[in-house]
């Protein structure tokens, strides 16, 4: 049981980072990015190919993060342009359709060009015993990185000028404009950030289990479930929901079976929404 919970925390922290990227883009811009998992996969592939070329893991991983950021910027500059011209529900729907299209194309191409490839970052060192459970270095390194990323995100959003400006757009876009904040500029920043976060998930995930080129959709779906449970537009919500669902997932996988864990996650998400329609800490209803 302790082992499942610890595994769940490792997974949950990654869920938290994964959902942060989705939830911020939705909270700020009303855009739902269904190609989010593919962003992570492309970043993983960049790391993989760079390492194939003989580059060590750390610079390759950093290049992967850069690739993620570039993808976010590219999304903002290209396929999201027509989305930004629409408002409210039409915007969400168009973003769903366009990013889904991109996701299919990317998935198809990757399966054809790099079939069965996957990124596995091996972190050396002996396993460490925590609470009587032997944890691999890879899991610990992944958790350390995700914790730092979440802490930095939290700090920036809560205490800095930039973080305040971004939250102000989520709370009241007109009000943000009145004080001189340019919402499109903030949205571009957030898309770049979401790309970097997708890459962080790809890299940390690959320290625990391989990230295959066809993992895109399952990452997006997991991200969506965590986002919905955590509440749209809330990083703290994404973090909490990530941990809860990560632990549920691990326990379910250990005691019931991996094949059912996604269904159990969906049921858990369904119950949360029944009790709290805006999610644990939702901003927008």
């Amino acid at each position, binding site marked *: 049981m302790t082992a499942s919970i610890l595994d769940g925390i490792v997974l949950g922290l990654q869920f938290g980072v994964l959902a942060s990227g989705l939830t911020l883009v939705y909270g700020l811009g009303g855009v739902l990015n269904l190609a989010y998992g593919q962003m992570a996969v492309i970043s993983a592939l960049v790391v993989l190919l760079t390492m194939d070329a003989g580059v060590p893991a750390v610079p390759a991983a950093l290049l992967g993060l850069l690739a993620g950021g570039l993808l976010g910027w590219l999304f903002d500059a290209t396929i999201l342009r027509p989305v930004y011209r629409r408002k409210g529900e039409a915007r969400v729907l168009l973003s769903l359709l366009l990013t889904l299209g991109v996701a299919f194309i990317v998935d198809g191409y990757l399966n054809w060009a790099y079939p069965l490839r996957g990124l596995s970052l091996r972190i050396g060192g002996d396993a460490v015993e925590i609470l009587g459970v032997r944890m691999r270095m890879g899991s610990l390194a992944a958790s350390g990185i995700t914790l730092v990323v979440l802490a930095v995100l939290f700090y920036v959003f809560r205490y800095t*000028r930039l973080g*305040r400006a971004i*939250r102000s757009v989520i*709370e*009241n876009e007109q*009000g943000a404009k*009145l004080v*001189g*904040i340019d919402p499109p500029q903030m949205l571009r920043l957030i898309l770049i950030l979401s790309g970097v976060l997708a890459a962080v998930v790809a890299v940390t995930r690959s320290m625990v289990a391989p990230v295959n080129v066809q993992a895109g959709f399952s990452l997006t779906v997991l991200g969506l479930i965590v986002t919905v449970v955590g509440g749209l537009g809330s990083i703290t919500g994404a973090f909490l929901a990530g941990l809860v669902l990560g632990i549920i997932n691990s326990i379910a996988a250990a005691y019931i079976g991996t094949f059912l864990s996604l269904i159990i996650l969906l049921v858990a998400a369904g119950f949360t929404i029944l009790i709290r329609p805006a999610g644990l800490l939702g*901003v927008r209803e």
Partner: protein
Amino acid sequence: MLEVAGLSAGYQGSDVLHDVSFHVDAGETVMIIGSNGAGKTTLFRALCGLLPSTSGRVTFRGEDVTGIPVQRIVGLGMAFVPAERYLFPRMTVQENLALGAYPELPDRETSTMVLDLFPRLEERRRQRAGTMSGGEQQMLAVGRALMSRPRLLVLDEPTTGLAPKLAREAYQALEVLRGGGMTILVAEQQVPLALAISDRGYVLENGAITLDGTSEELTADPRVRSAYLGVT
């Protein structure tokens, strides 16, 4: 300071404002008086770049600002407080004020000035804006606008939804700002209150300016007296 010439604007192709012209000089407090639906809000939204105008020109501090989006107008020194206030409800009073100074960090001098003007905000620094009363939210909206150290403060119906006592308090605060040399433009339905603290005024009816003059002239005008002051 502000020069509006032949401004027309509206929604979905039909103009609400017709050829509106007026000006505000530095240091003046000017009122736009009009009943509900006269076009005051449309006028201010067009003025501040929240609504595109169909014709006319807005010049602010010698610069043509017609059609410039609202997020850039603030940087030029014009702060707008709409009747809806557009606060950040889940953020604290302090955070709302800090955002008013964006892109700068709030400086001590301006913060002190704002908190001296509205001591209630000082008491509620850590309270979330959305949980405050209407009067306090209005103070916060004006305070947030002042944090940008504007040359011109534009207020759309600052007394909307306020009890008479709070409305008087709001105008006392404006009086203090006016005494400090701030240039102020206000749209108002509460005409007696408004004319008492302003230098000049314009009467807006059905989207056009029908009358203008100093506050004394307007207070004495029989049309204003019967339509807005309840005197027959």
